[in-house]
């Protein structure tokens, strides 16, 4: 007879055995978990982090891997840090992704323009090879060409347009081009200011930054009877609204 079987028979015969029914045996692990939580609560020693630690500690025990409570604490801390790092990564990636998709909801609620996805593809060289970085800005304003003697009028209009469009597109989505700069943009705004007698003729053109096609043109005349500054500011505001409609349609 096998030693273990013989020993069990012996224990039984000499009344050492005090059998616990199988259905009770199955409940002891659960009872242990429940009772530990209850006693710690009654002793005012239960905290949320510690309940996580004990759950992990008892889980390892139930899997036949007895670790120390200190080990369970370290594993919980590592797990929590990993989870936090994962959540941070997911959040960062999501923010980056949605920044590429559109302005965030709070931005839209602030009245900023809800634009279509920024171009994340690259230029087609014509040989089937895509090159070049993604769009840097939604719009770049090329300072308006001044055909009058008072250069300040053109600069003031460019600045006014920049302010209006910045409010619509967001701070980081628009720039004023400096000489020699050619960043990739979805739209380029350019134009000119000319004089006709006492009148100012302002023309603007909005180009598609990828195709080079003109998507919008506009012309405005400031009568010489009004102050030029007020006229250009009003026009900048009107133009901002028109451009908004154009961009939203696209």
């Amino acid at each position: 007879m096998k030693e273990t079987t013989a020993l069990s028979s012996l224990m039984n015969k000499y009344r050492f055995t005090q059998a616990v029914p199988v259905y009770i045996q199955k409940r002891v692990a659960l009872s242990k978990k429940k009772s530990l939580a209850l006693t710690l609560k009654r002793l005012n020693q239960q905290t949320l982090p510690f309940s996580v630690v004990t759950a992990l500690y008892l889980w390892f025990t139930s899997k036949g891997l007895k670790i120390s409570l200190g080990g369970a604490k370290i594993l919980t801390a590592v797990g929590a840090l990993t989870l936090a790092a994962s959540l941070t990564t997911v959040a960062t990636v999501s923010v980056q992704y949605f920044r590429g998709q559109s302005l965030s909801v709070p931005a839209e609620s602030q009245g900023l323009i809800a634009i279509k996805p920024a171009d994340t593809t690259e230029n087609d060289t014509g040989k089937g090879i895509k090159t070049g970085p993604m769009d840097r800005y939604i719009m770049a304003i090329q300072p308006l060409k001044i055909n009058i003697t008072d250069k300040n009028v053109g600069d003031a209009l460019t600045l006014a347009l920049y302010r209006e469009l910045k409010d619509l597109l967001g701070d980081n989505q628009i720039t004023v081009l400096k000489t020699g700069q050619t960043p990739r943009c979805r739209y380029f705004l350019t134009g000119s200011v000319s004089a006709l007698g006492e009148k100012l003729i302002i023309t603007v053109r909005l180009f598609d930054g990828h195709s080079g096609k003109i998507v919008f043109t506009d012309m405005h005349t400031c009568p010489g009877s009004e102050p030029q500054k007020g006229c250009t500011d009003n026009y900048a505001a009107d133009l901002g609204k028109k451009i908004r409609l154009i961009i939203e349609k696209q």
Partner: protein
Amino acid sequence: MHIDRKRRDLYTEHFNNYYPMVFNAVYVKIGNIDDTEDICQEVFIALYNNLEKVDSVRQWLYGTLKNYVLKFYRDRKDNTVDIDTVFADISLTFVNGFRDARLVLESVIAEEVADDEDMAVFEMVAIHNYSYAHTAELLGLTKRKIEYRYTQMAKRIQKNLEKRGIGSLEELL
């Protein structure tokens, strides 16, 4: 609420190690799982409150659980249960060869199952008839380890009995 981390950690480790033992010991005396859980909780709360005074946790828990079981019967005022017989030493109730063989066996087990972890395995498997799998689940050891330990204990007990002139375990059966 003051959290005594050191004390709480020690208590939790004792709880994990000894809960099955206390549970089994109480259950075989009470026979009701809800009452058993209540008593176990009282016993462990008493352990928490006396942690500094306890030398041998196992012995202390056995002594305390006995008191709580007796209190349970007293509180119930159950006349059908004779409290004295609940914890009576069974070896005294038998005479002649049976009692002698039992005393010998008791002494051999005490000699060969001295280690705390071995004792837990022995109690669960040999006394409370737990399967290796359930024992493993409660003691934090693998099933194979439980089986190995129990087999080794059985072999040691057999050898010890051989030294005492008993050729095999079957002789006692």
